[in-house]
């Protein structure tokens, strides 16, 4: 028996996995597509379908994020529009590369290796941050509204046409569209939203204050996500049923995850998040080795490792919520009050 073309086992797996990914990424403020796409790859989805479905999932989470932050106010629309053009060209370029690699029969291998590097990189950054917190007793990340020095240096190269930024600075059209193009290329090739690259790129390369970078990233991400879903949809490479089922779980999990940020200290669980990313990287690496050796059991182990680590860290966040609520005198008031 199949529901929406999915077996009951897959249906339960996707709803619960979507829920845990939602909890995690609602808590850590990310979209989560970079766990969804590799999971679909390991489960045997063709690379274009895994990537297209990952981008479509990202688009769904973007719609929800924008609805939640519609009053954020910190959006540089002109910058967002130029970025969107660059992102669109980049995503289309990425899609063409993926289909080219698919014709050569190496799309899964190349995207798998790229994911091993990407997830290991993100995991290392989070682990480093966790260790910095342990050393200093505080997160040393600065929240300054100033334009970083590296961005000021880039802005000093005036290659016309120059665009005035709302923050007062100016950036070359080529810097903005080039940044969008590179981020879009990675997003289109790997089926990720690219928010983890887009926001730092807007801040460090283009040079806008942090608050404007977050809002503009969200704005550009929504439209580039829509374009990514559209362009892979045109190729028939989006599994709507899988995306829908994942979104059902993720939308609920994201609400709980974002509510949990007011109750649980991020510093308490950040190390687990870094470890989870490293385990995810290991899982994809194992899966590639399993495919190469033709040992199916390794693939099963990879899925267990990838999904299991996400469940473990999601459960850790929920456990910390439960612990904090038990300590709290008026738990319901805090949970409900956060959303108003």
């Amino acid at each position, binding site marked *: 028996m199949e529901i*929406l*073309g999915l077996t009951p086992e897959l249906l339960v797996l996707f709803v619960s996995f979507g829920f845990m990914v939602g909890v995690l990424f609602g808590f850590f403020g990310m979209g989560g597509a970079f766990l969804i796409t590799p999971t679909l790859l390991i489960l045997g989805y063709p690379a274009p*379908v895994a990537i297209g479905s990952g981008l*479509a999932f990202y*688009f*769904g*989470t973007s*719609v*929800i994020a924008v*609805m*939640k932050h519609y009053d954020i106010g910190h959006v540089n629309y002109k910058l967002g529009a130029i970025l969107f053009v660059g992102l669109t060209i980049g995503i289309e370029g990425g899609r063409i590369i993926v289909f080219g690699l698919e014709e050569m029969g190496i799309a899964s291998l190349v995207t798998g290796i790229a994911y091993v590097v990407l997830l290991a990189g993100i995991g290392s950054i989070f682990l480093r941050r966790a260790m910095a917190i342990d050393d200093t007793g505080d997160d040393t990340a600065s929240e300054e509204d100033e334009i970083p020095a590296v961005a000021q240096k880039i802005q000093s190269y005036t290659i016309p046409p120059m665009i005035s930024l709302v923050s007062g600075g100016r950036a070359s059209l080529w810097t903005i569209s080039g940044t969008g193009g590179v981020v879009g290329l990675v997003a289109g090739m790997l089926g990720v939203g690219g928010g983890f690259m887009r926001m730092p790129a807007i801040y460090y390369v283009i040079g806008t204050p942090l608050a404007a970078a977050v809002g503009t990233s969200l704005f550009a991400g929504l439209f580039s996500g*829509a374009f990514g*879903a*559209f*362009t*892979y*949809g*045109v*190729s*028939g490479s*989006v*599994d*709507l*049923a*899988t*995306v*829908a089922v994942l*979104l*059902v779980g993720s*939308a*609920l999990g994201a*609400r709980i995850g974002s509510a949990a940020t007011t109750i649980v200290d991020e510093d308490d669980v950040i190390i687990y998040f870094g470890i989870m990313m490293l385990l995810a990287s290991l899982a994809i690496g194992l899966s590639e080795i399993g495919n190469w050796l033709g040992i199916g059991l390794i693939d099963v182990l990879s899925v267990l490792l990838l999904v299991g680590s996400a469940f473990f860290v999601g459960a850790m966040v929920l456990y910390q919520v439960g612990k904090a609520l038990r300590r709290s005198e*008026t738990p*319901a*008031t805090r*949970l*409900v009050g956060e*959303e108003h």
Partner: protein
Amino acid sequence: MLELINVPPIAQGAIVVAAITILAVGLYAGYAVVERFVGNRMLEALDDV
């Protein structure tokens, strides 16, 4: 895999974007209503204690 049969490619892309938008908006609104309902019940229960 759920497939859209006999649908032109451009329409397939548009259907994907439209379907995900509607689903995401619906999920957001639906969970918000449930959360408010459950939250109010919890507050009422606390008032009763």
